[in-house]
């Protein structure tokens, strides 16, 4: 029954990514990321209940605090400062993007079938969802022009990884997880700093303009 809950949350995260692909407002995208992180936290709690691993609660709490609250807030601040609220025309239009993402999901699931069979096999849905999220996140980074969207996509990929960590392995060793989360935050900060500098310099957050270095 808890397994189903986990899978449900995973599915919810997948949906959130589809929604991200499906619209252009940066604010909504950030909110969606927040929701996605909440679901991730939920997965953590569920697994904690299932496996009786108290440290998973810590992880979950940390995830929700950081990824559902701090980071979205930070990113919204960046937007306000920059004053750009919509993603301009992406390289691939929305309907096509959605179709391609379906394809990517297929790829992810196809691979995840390999997991089920193994003796210590893990629920392949979770891995399937995670892999598709990774691919879709990367796809978002490829097709979207705004630096902020790319950061969000990157964070989505990060969430996918944690989904595997929580949903499929019932948590990595705590020290490692703390270290990783810390690094992730730092990365986001650095990215944010760079975005600020870029915006100051180029009066734009459109990374497709950053193409002076060729050959």
């Amino acid at each position, binding site marked *: 029954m808890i397994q189903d809950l986990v899978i449900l949350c995973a599915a919810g995260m997948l949906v959130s990514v589809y929604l991200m692909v499906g619209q252009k407002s940066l604010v909504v995208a950030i909110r969606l990321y927040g929701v996605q992180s909440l679901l991730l936290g939920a997965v953590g709690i569920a697994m904690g209940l299932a496996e009786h691993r108290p440290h998973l609660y810590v992880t979950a709490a940390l995830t929700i605090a950081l990824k559902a609250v701090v980071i979205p807030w930070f990113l919204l601040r960046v937007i306000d400062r920059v004053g750009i609220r919509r993603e301009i025309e992406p390289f691939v239009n929305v309907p096509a993007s959605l179709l391609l993402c379906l394809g*990517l999901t297929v790829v992810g699931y196809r*691979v995840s079938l*390999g997991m089920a*069979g193994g003796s210590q096999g893990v629920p392949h849905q979770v891995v399937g969802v995670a*892999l598709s999220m990774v691919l879709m996140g990367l796809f978002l980074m490829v*097709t979207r*022009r705004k630096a902020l969207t790319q950061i969000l996509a990157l964070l989505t990929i990060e969430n996918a990884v944690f989904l595997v960590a929580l949903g499929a392995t019932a948590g990595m060793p705590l020290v490692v997880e703390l270290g990783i989360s810390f690094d992730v935050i730092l990365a986001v900060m650095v990215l944010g700093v760079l975005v600020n500098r870029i915006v100051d310099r180029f009066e734009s957050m459109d*990374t497709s303009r950053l193409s002076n*270095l060729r050959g």
Partner: protein
Amino acid sequence: MSQSLLPLGLAFHATGVALALVLRRQPAACRWAAFLASLGGSLVSFVLGASVLASGRSVRGVLFANPAAGMSVGYAVDPLSAWFLVTFAVLAAPVAVYSVGYLAHAMPPGRTAFVGVAWNVLLMSVETVFAADGVLAFLVAWELMTLATAALVATDHESRPSRRSAFLYLAMSHLGTGCLVAAFFLLASGSGSLAFADLLGGATAASSPWRDVLFVLFLVGFGVKAGVVPLHVWLPEAHPAAPSNVSALMSGGLINAGLYGLVRVGAGGLGRPDPGWGMGVLLLGSVSAILGVLYALSENDLKRLLAFSTIENGGIALMGFGAGMIGLAAGRPELGALGFAAGLYHVLNHAAFKGLLFLGAGGVVAATGTRKLEELGGLAHRMPRTAGLFLLGSAAIAGLPLLNGFASEWLVFQALLRGFFSAERLTRIVLPLGGALLALTSALAAACFVKAFAMTFLARPRSRAASEATESKALLLAPQAFLAAACVGLGLFPGLVVRVLAGVAASLPGFGPQDAFSGGLAGMTIGIPAFDHLSPLVIVPAVLFGLGLAAASGLVSARARRRAPAWGCGGELSAETEYTATAFAKPLVMVFRGIYRPTREVSRFESVRYFTSEVRYRSQIDAPFELHVYGPATRAVLAAAGQLRVIQAGSLHAYLAYVLVLGVILLWWLGGLP
């Protein structure tokens, strides 16, 4: 004692390098130190080679080792290596002496040290190439040789031609080296050993499935250095671009490195060769010889002319090797021995007369500051000694009797014609045809060097520089005299050379002692019963008798006192009315226009209708291989590279897309079902 000779010789060169660096501030001292050291090194390697040739026993040892890679550089001097060491020393020693005098006024003092260093490194590496006992030693020396040569070619790097030709040389050489690396390792993958003794003993390759591939790879790899058409493109560029002393060494000494390799693999090194291989080598040799001499003939730049004739002589040597391989393939080692002996003999002779000619040319260029035949002329009056030596060299390279060129070409003829008796139908006709081509080659060479000598030294000077030239110094003339003496000696006593060569041939894998040819002081004899023989000494009295008669004619006639200007059909003869180098070659260019494909344009200017006031004539022969093969190839590669620029077009999105695509591909490749 003989174990220490090669290291000793290399030590001499190393000392040369060190001294050149130390004394770089005093050009004069630097010159003497560097080149006397190199002279010492050459003498030592000559002694080493001579002792091995005399005793017939190989000398081996280790030079240096790279413990980390577990690789070591050893050497083994067998008679074949010894032959090439001696050949190289015979040329390198006099050229070293020449360099001392030549660099004094032909090289900016600042570059003396550089030349001294590169020169000694070059000699070191060449000697190691000939002495290497394994793949790695060989490849190291081979690469060092290439780099040192390129550096020397680029000595005058401010001039675009030098830079260009140095790079062309590097590029072509690396094409070759790549082939060699592949060939050697492919060959070694059979036995697992990298020692020549195991690799090129014949057995390894005989069992290899890659035999033909191996031979082609070797042929390309060594062919580049030997200047075999169509891999020769670098040669006529690089040889003239280098300082004349280096040109002499490159032409007379460095192409031998390629020929050496071809003998190693051709003479049983890959087991008994296929008849096809022999045919191929013979064909390449003939093509190189003919094209080489034809382009030399049409060339009006003295040093380029000599460079093209180098291609020709490499071709002649290859014809000998080809005949040898055909004989070997037909299971007649004695014929094989004859062919290889002929080729090796020609290699030695070429070192002598081409060295002589390049040194002479260097003297001329230094004295007049020009290489263009059209701007030379009349130097026989101003530089009589140089002229005499150059004439002797020309006669030798033209294959005229009593000189060494004739002796080795004679031997090549024998190889071709003897092979005729053994082999099957196809070779019965191909070999004598090769003989005819060789005859054509040497006749054309005669024409070519009549032109080279006459246009440089005879009639009136065609430029101010030529009319004010002065004779070279003794330091430049002595080495030429030495090489001239070598030309005469090697021409008058072929029997002694052949006797040595019999030993060399016998030492090759798949040969062993045979009686295809024998030699003595009297001369050399081919075949049993005597198919043909040559003892120049016997004809010398006849020639002297003729000269005596001619001189005697002077007694009966009134003595020649009067000198008068040559008859100019009423007009005044001047440098302008002389027969030009272009005009001299014109008839043959017309005859062979099918090969030359000259572009000619005649433009008439009519001041009054029907009355031509002026005619301009332009004729140009452009190099076909550069034009139709290498040029397009290079452009294609660069164009392709330019197209690939889009990979790195600066778009982060594209870069991320690569990762995405890779990820999808890999995941799909993993599949899902366990």
